[in-house]
């Protein structure tokens, strides 16, 4: 395991987290048992939009084991936590008040001695609903007269805004137009939401075990909502079974906390899988109208985007992402001199929208890479060449884009060259030609995407302490939930102290043990938390060197960290002290080797890459089989290549899945029709091809590690590559676009229409309402700033 002190960074150190997980020693919330703990269950609305006429909990209250049954009227509940409120009129209560706005909206809370008792009682709650008009489709939500959720909004438009260039297509020889659906998907972490709230502890008024990404953020939010001093609240994020942007303090978590305080007993709520699919925030959900203007030679002139974002019920904050990261990244890896970007963000009677792996950036890369491929088809230029022609060049960084993004560093051509080499692009094209010539039943599709995304930004906290036994405790304010921070951050620290990784004890995810932190989201952790650990370790080493210099009567600059984990004098091997000895002396002198440190605020970093997807399309059935996926992702300097590849593999699975399989669907009445994993097409390993992953390493100048985020990049890059591959397989028939997911039936219909000469136009005009939105003003800029700060 020890690979030699001082040489951990950049090597595939095996995960220190795995032994506990593999031995079943995980600390997942549902594993927690506390004496006297109660179980909480919710009665959720089976109707998408309705007035609650009456709630009868009499029979439920009489069930054995039931402690209490509550509707909003029975509890003084704060509003549901919102990472960002889109509109003051669109406020979500923690339990439905007066109306329900989506199927799954919690209406009644049942508390019982056991989970089974709570669920049995929940069955007996009688709620009388008066159905109201329902709007499911985000474009129909724009229509005047569509049923609105909030009367004071006067419709479903939460934000309507026109921004950017007034005439971006001026001077174009050719304009390519497409309407793209970036479909709604469910997050589906292996572990759903889960919380245990314990009011019986002595050190804190409330101890909360929450499956989440950002325990300190959750603590601040919960304390504020409950009117408590946050120093009296402890939030622990134990082992978390995946979060992907969606795990934060939820409405249900607030109800659980309130009930624990009211009842004076610990309360547990663990979401069922059925609940998870309708209650946890969904992601994506945009309709994108995109027009790209080019000169005949392929040079981009300008782009006009008119985008609709689905916020779901109560104006879920994920609706804002279209105006945040999607807009910010609309220029992609290219020079596009003028861009217009109009948005409509609407409420619908569906599960509220939130952040999901990529959170706005995959939506941007999807439409940019799609329209570029359409343009390549239109102009008869190879999609690779068209991309190269318009790339931002390596010598242009740092660069502020038309959209206001401060790209830190990049070499888009290098990533593209590498991915084409690994995929053997020319050979693939030759094989495609042969199959077309032969009229094979299985046609080949080759999809290329080149992307850039945005990660991190901000500051992070770390604490490092050397103990008198020579062990070192390292803490960071980030909060891993599968990523492997304990391994990566220990590598970073071990290198500074020259000790084996086993000598590091890594602590995170507990507000009682870590002074502060922003948690994990937006692929921020290594670049900010890792940098914090690096800087703090260096500060501790510096202090130790000063002490050793004094003890060994030499100058601090002559003290070095030896290869055997001690502090010695350069060139005098016999003169050295162990870390334990130094720590002991430091403690005796009243200044233990402990440093708390916050990094300075850093700008966001911009990871990028290039993907090639190869698919086979069965021309008789429309079935798409992904054959290969080659990903070259540049996340700057890599700390642990094995962890990075793990992130890439997971990201690829998510991204490929959006292109081919996943979509959360409702019927016209707002009933979810993909509400179990039998209908909601989460793929398994059996559906996915073998991945080829590689990396170029272009350092970021914005942090000491040179690192950029990697948790979401592969998702951003892979979706458009696969979608482009499907369309590419049929491009010789004249097919120009197929919406995601590229289901067998959709692909079959495209083939059939192409053969019949009835292919639909991939373009139509967006709703006229969008032309009437105000142009960007002070209010809009404020919203945009808010949107950019939501980086999950």
């Amino acid at each position, binding site marked *: 395991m020890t690979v030699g002190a001082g040489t951990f960074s950049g090597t595939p150190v095996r995960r220190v987290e795995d032994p506990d997980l593999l031995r079943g020693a995980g600390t997942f919330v549902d594993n927690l048992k506390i004496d006297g703990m109660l179980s909480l269950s919710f009665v959720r609305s089976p109707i998408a939009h309705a007035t609650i006429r009456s709630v009868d909990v009499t029979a439920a209250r009489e069930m054995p084991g039931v402690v209490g049954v509550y509707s909003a009227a029975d509890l003084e509940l704060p509003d549901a936590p919102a990472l960002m409120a889109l509109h003051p009129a669109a406020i979500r209560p923690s339990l439905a008040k007066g109306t329900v706005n989506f199927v799954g909206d919690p209406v009644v809370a049942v508390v019982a001695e056991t989970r089974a008792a709570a669920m*049995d009682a929940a069955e007996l709650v009688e709620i009388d609903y008066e159905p109201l008009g329902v709007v499911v489709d985000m474009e129909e939500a724009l229509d005047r007269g569509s049923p609105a959720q909030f009367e004071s909004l006067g419709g479903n438009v939460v934000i309507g805004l026109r921004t950017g260039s007034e005439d971006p297509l001026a001077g174009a020889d050719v304009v390519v137009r497409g309407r793209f659906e970036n479909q709604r998907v469910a997050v589906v972490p292996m572990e759903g939401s889960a919380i245990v709230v314990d009011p019986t502890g002595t050190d804190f008024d409330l101890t909360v075990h929450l499956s989440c990404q950002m325990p300190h953020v959750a603590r601040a939010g919960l304390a504020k909502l409950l009117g408590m001093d946050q120093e009296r609240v402890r939030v622990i994020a134990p082992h978390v079974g995946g979060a992907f942007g969606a795990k934060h303090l939820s409405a249900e978590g607030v109800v659980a906390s309130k009930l624990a305080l009211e009842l004076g007993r610990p309360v547990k709520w663990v979401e069922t*899988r*059925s609940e998870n699919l309708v209650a946890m925030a969904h992601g994506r959900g945009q309709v994108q109208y995109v027009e790209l203007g080019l000169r005949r030679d392929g040079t981009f002139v300008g782009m006009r985007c008119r985008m609709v974002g689905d916020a779901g019920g109560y104006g879920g904050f994920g609706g804002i992402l279209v105006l945040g990261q999607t807009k910010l990244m609309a220029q992609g890896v290219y020079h596009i001199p003028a861009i217009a970007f109009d948005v409509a963000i609407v409420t619908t009677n569906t599960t509220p929208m939130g952040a999901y792996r990529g959170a706005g950036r995959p939506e941007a890369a999807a439409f940019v890479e799609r329209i570029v491929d359409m343009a390549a088809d239109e102009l008869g230029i190879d999609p690779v060449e068209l991309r190269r022609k318009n790339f931002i060049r390596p010598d242009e960084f740092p660069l502020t884009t038309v959209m206001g993004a401060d790209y830190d560093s990049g070499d888009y051509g290098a990533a593209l060259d590498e991915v084409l080499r690994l995929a053997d692009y020319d050979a693939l094209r030759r094989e495609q030609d042969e199959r077309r010539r032969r009229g094979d039943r299985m046609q080949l599709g080759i999809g290329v995407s080149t992307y850039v995304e945005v990660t991190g930004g901000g500051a992070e906290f770390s604490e490092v302490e050397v103990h008198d036994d020579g062990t070192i405790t390292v803490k960071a304010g980030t909060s891993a939930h599968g990523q492997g921070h304990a391994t990566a951050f220990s590598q970073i620290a071990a290198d500074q102290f020259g000790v084996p990784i086993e000598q590091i004890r890594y602590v995170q995810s507990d507000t009682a043990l870590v002074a502060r932190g922003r948690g994990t989201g937006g692929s921020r952790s290594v670049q900010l938390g890792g940098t914090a650990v690096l800087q703090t370790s260096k500060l501790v080493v510096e202090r130790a060197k000063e002490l050793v210099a004094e003890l060994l009567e030499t100058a601090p600059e002559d003290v070095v960290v030896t290869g055997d984990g001690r502090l010695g004098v350069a060139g005098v091997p016999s003169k050295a002290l162990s870390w334990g000895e130094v720590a002991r002396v430091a403690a005796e002198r009243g200044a233990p080797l402990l440093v708390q440190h916050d990094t300075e605020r850093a700008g966001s970093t911009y990871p990028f890459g290039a993907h090639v997807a190869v698919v086979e399309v069965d021309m008789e059935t429309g079935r798409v089989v992904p054959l290969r996926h080659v990903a070259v992702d540049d996340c700057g300097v890599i700390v642990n290549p094995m962890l990075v590849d793990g992130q890439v593999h997971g990201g690829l699975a998510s991204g490929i899945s959006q292109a081919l399989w996943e979509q959360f669907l409702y019927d016209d009445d707002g009933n979810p029709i993909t509400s179990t994993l*039998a209908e909601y097409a989460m793929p*398994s390993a059996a559906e996915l091809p073998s991945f080829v992953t590689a990396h170029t390493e272009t350092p970021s100048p914005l942090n000491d590690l040179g690192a950029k985020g990697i948790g979401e990049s592969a998702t951003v890059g892979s979706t458009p590559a696969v979608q482009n591959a499907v369309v590419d397989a049929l491009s010789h028939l004249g097919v120009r676009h197929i919406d995601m997911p590229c*289901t067998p*039936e959709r692909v079959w219909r495209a083939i059939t229409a192409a053969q019949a000469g009835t292919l639909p136009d991939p373009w139509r005009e967006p709703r006229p309402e969008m032309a009437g939105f105000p142009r960007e003003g002070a209010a809009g800029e404020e919203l945009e700033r808010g949107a950019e700060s939501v980086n999950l």
Partner: protein
Amino acid sequence: MIPAAFEYVRAESAEEAVALLVEHGDDAKLIAGGHSLLPLMKLRLATPTVLVDIGRVPGLSYIEERGDEIAIGALARHHDLETSAVLKEQVPLLAATAHQVGDPQVRHRGTLGGTLAHGDPASDLPAAVLALGGTLVAQGPNGRREISALEFFRGFLETALGADEVLVEIRVPKAAGAGWSFQKFNRRAQDWAIVGVAAVVNGTTGIALVNMGSTPLRATAVEEAVRSGASVTDAAAAASQGTDPPSDVNASSEYRRHLATVLVRRALEEASS
């Protein structure tokens, strides 16, 4: 995701199971592998008050030669079918079909009797037994009776089994050397078929369709066309005749009809090659 409360009784024999069904009437439900019933109970879409567990009844998991037939105990699991040497030799269609059901966990729990008695039109094995022209043996209060697979599937999740009967045995004709094919079209390996086709060519041609109506169906129009000498393509064109395929989240009715034509053609081609 927690079922409503129920009583649980374990039957030690088919006779005891029948007696328990008689005793508890409509409140009782048989459970074997549980892979159809338990999900419905967890979603509280099924709320039987008595579960009669026949999963451990001894002597009902056999797969054996019996004259011109292979006899299979109703409790034989999909995994037993897919790995049975005698089945692979004598009725390879059934072994190959079992191999495509669900995933390994499902195949280790689910039983042939259970999937037939559940009668889901989207399940694979009922269509295979139907194409083979199998015989089902039911045990009731008055002893055993035989039901032809052709008569067994009555409606959506409805079979010829009486409320007090237990399916105990399935027999299919030996077909060593016969042509056969099982075509399953789905989006994910573990999914039910969007459309499936079981075909066996053994002097006569038997073809059955998965998920093309409210029950597993014989493609009689195709069989007739083959009998009267039509080409494979022409015969396959009749695949959706007499069917009423559903429209759902995976496929429209129209697309299912198209798939049936393609898959029947492929099945006939494979079975006759």
